[in-house]
């Protein structure tokens, strides 16, 4: 997508638009007009990366109630607020023990460069958290630099092999992704280099389709047996996650638990993607804020909240987001887009190159084209060499530390000595919509729309 289709200023200066009394349609705004014009010109729907750009109720619509009289705060910078989390101790004999509840979401080698994957591993390991493979298999760079590596078991099974399965610290059975629940993937041929093609057993340069469902099972009962197979192969040592794209998280979480998941990962519609149809990104799935309470409710009703851990992803940006997700009942969060930005994605120093592609820093989302100036979402050797994995890892580690410290700061203000002690009672909502979705009171009231 080019910048013109994102509602950039028209050719007329703003003052002239005002003087002429021109009025933009709320329905057919400039972005919509540009989309229609692009569709008419090309006959193809827009494919792009990143994730939903529309505004939906989000963590910004929640506020924390810091302690004062009725609650007792902890001293900032003085009193301890722990951040560690154990993931996957329901059945696995070797659960993950992470030092921060902020993890790195699955992103494939293929969608990302090898240097980007290595940088993610370096940054995550430096702060004691995990990173995750993606659709395409495990690279030596990633395994080598990741202290805790989660191996995704995806519908495509690209690069899937039992040797890597046994090397993994956890296995994530992916049923869906927040950006496209129910949808498969399309990695266009520009990014299918010899190495990517080899890992995926495909000819070089052809479009690569990722399946929307697993080839050898058809429902939750099959999934239970499939998880049993994975446990048998790994001798019941490795935690099994089940990742769902948020659409019906109450039922999907309950069924994932029934199937034997150690950890459930719920990815809201603000979650990113390397490439899929824009119409899918913006119109399928539900906001992360709406998904968490439903997943937590399912776990609570099963008596397994905090026993089967919940990881939430989709639009996590700040320590406040981390703290809010955990207060709503998550055990940990995962970041994807934010991690790429920390590495240098959409960096203004590449402004001229973004402009040459009809985009701008902060807007670039044509990850499928493989021409990412920042060297992150590309397989071009020259471009990918721009990203120093050591420097990228350092930047990511810094960002992860900031997220963790920000969450700690808020938790202390709420009187919590551990991030996991945050609770819904620490939150209020700014809008009726957020109040109803998050199931916390509208600020200044005790009213939760729809609560019984």
């Amino acid at each position: 997508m080019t910048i013109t289709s994102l509602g950039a200023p028209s050719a007329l200066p703003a003052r002239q638009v005002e003087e002429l009394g021109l009025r933009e349609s709320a329905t057919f705004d400039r972005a919509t007009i540009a989309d229609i014009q692009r569709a008419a010109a090309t006959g193809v729907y827009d494919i792009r990366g990143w994730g939903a750009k529309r505004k939906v109720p989000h963590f910004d619509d929640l506020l924390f109630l810091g302690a004062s009289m009725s609650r007792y705060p902890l001293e900032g910078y003085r009193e301890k607020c722990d951040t560690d989390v154990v993931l996957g101790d329901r059945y696995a004999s070797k659960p993950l023990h992470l030092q921060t509840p902020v993890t790195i979401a699955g992103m494939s080698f293929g969608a990302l460069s090898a240097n980007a994957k290595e940088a993610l591993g370096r940054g995550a390991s430096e702060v004691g958290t995990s990173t995750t493979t993606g659709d395409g298999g495990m690279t030596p760079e990633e395994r080598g630099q990741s202290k805790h590596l989660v191996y995704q078991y995806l519908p495509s099974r690209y690069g899937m092999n039992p040797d890597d399965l046994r090397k993994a610290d956890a296995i994530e059975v992916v049923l869906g992704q927040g950006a496209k629940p129910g949808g498969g993937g399309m990695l266009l041929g520009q990014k299918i280099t010899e190495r990517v093609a080899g890992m995926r057993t495909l000819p070089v340069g052809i479009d690569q389709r990722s399946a929307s469902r697993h080839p050898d099972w058809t429902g939750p009962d099959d999934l239970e047996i499939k998880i049993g197979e994975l446990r048998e192969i790994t001798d019941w040592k490795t935690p099994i996650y089940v990742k769902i794209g948020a659409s019906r998280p109450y039922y999907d979480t309950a069924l994932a638990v029934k199937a034997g998941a150690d950890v459930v990962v719920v990815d809201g519609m603000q979650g990113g993607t390397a490439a899929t149809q824009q119409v899918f990104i913006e119109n399928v799935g539900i906001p992360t804020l709406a998904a968490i309470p439903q997943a937590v409710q399912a776990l609570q009703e099963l008596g397994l909240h905090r026993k089967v851990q919940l990881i939430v992803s989709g639009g996590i940006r700040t320590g406040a987001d981390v703290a809010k997700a955990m207060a709503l009942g998550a055990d940990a969060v995962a970041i994807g887009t934010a991690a790429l930005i920390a590495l240098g994605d959409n960096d203004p120093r590449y402004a001229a190159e973004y402009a040459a592609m009809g985009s701008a820093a902060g807007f670039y989302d044509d990850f499928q084209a493989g021409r990412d100036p920042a060297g992150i979402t590309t397989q071009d050797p020259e471009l990918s060499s721009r990203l120093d994995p050591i420097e990228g890892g350092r930047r990511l580690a810094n960002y992860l530390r900031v997220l963790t410290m920000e969450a700690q700061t808020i938790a202390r203000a709420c009187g919590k000595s551990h991030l996991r002690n945050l609770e819904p009672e620490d939150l209020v909502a700014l809008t009726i919509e957020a109040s109803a979705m998050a199931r916390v009171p509208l600020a200044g009231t005790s009213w939760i729309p729809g609560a019984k």
Partner: protein
Amino acid sequence: MVTLIETQTQDYPAATDELPALVDLADSPVRDLNQALHEALDGQSWTVENPGGKHSLAVGIDAGVSVTINGHAGYYAAGMHQKGEVTINGNAGVGLAENIMSGKVHVKGDASQSAAATGHGGLVVIDGNAGARCGISMKGVDIVVGGNIGHMSAFMAQAGRLVVCGDAGDALGDSIYEARIYVKGTVASLGADCIEKPMKAEHLEELAGLLAAAGRTDDPADFKRYGSARNLYHFSVHNSTSY
């Protein structure tokens, strides 16, 4: 892709003089069987009695062992198989030899759906029939089916060879990539981008080798070959009705 020749020439130490280890699943859990197989050494032999259709039998084998299962197996028998050989003297459930990497899996009866799904290498032989989606997303495995196969078999098949000595169901090879399919009987219908291709000398030779490896005496000249037309390798709006 693991070739047939590599499969045939795998060289493991000779089996010991010890009698095959016997696991009776009427008395032992599947966990014990798999744990023992994961700790087994090349050349060892195992016999499994009373499988009773249990799931995940002999999964994750990573040594040159020989396992004989006397009876029916449930889902995912010999899943993620490597190096060794598993023989099932009975039928197999869904996902037989799922994601097999190398070695050989031989079912003397029928197999349910998704046999050898996503297999990367090795040889899977099914003497009887196989259900729907046989060889779905296959990535280098060779599959020889003595009987018929169901619909949507070899869907999105990327590499490897599927040999069918009976008939094939609807939508054979839908969205196929570089895998090759040989069918002796009839094909109900071909899927998107799958076409019949000429049988050249190298294909007859390849097929003869696959049939021999499966212990079959069918004449390669009786088979037809199917593969990708490669028209859908790049997304094009002009092909939108094909998807």
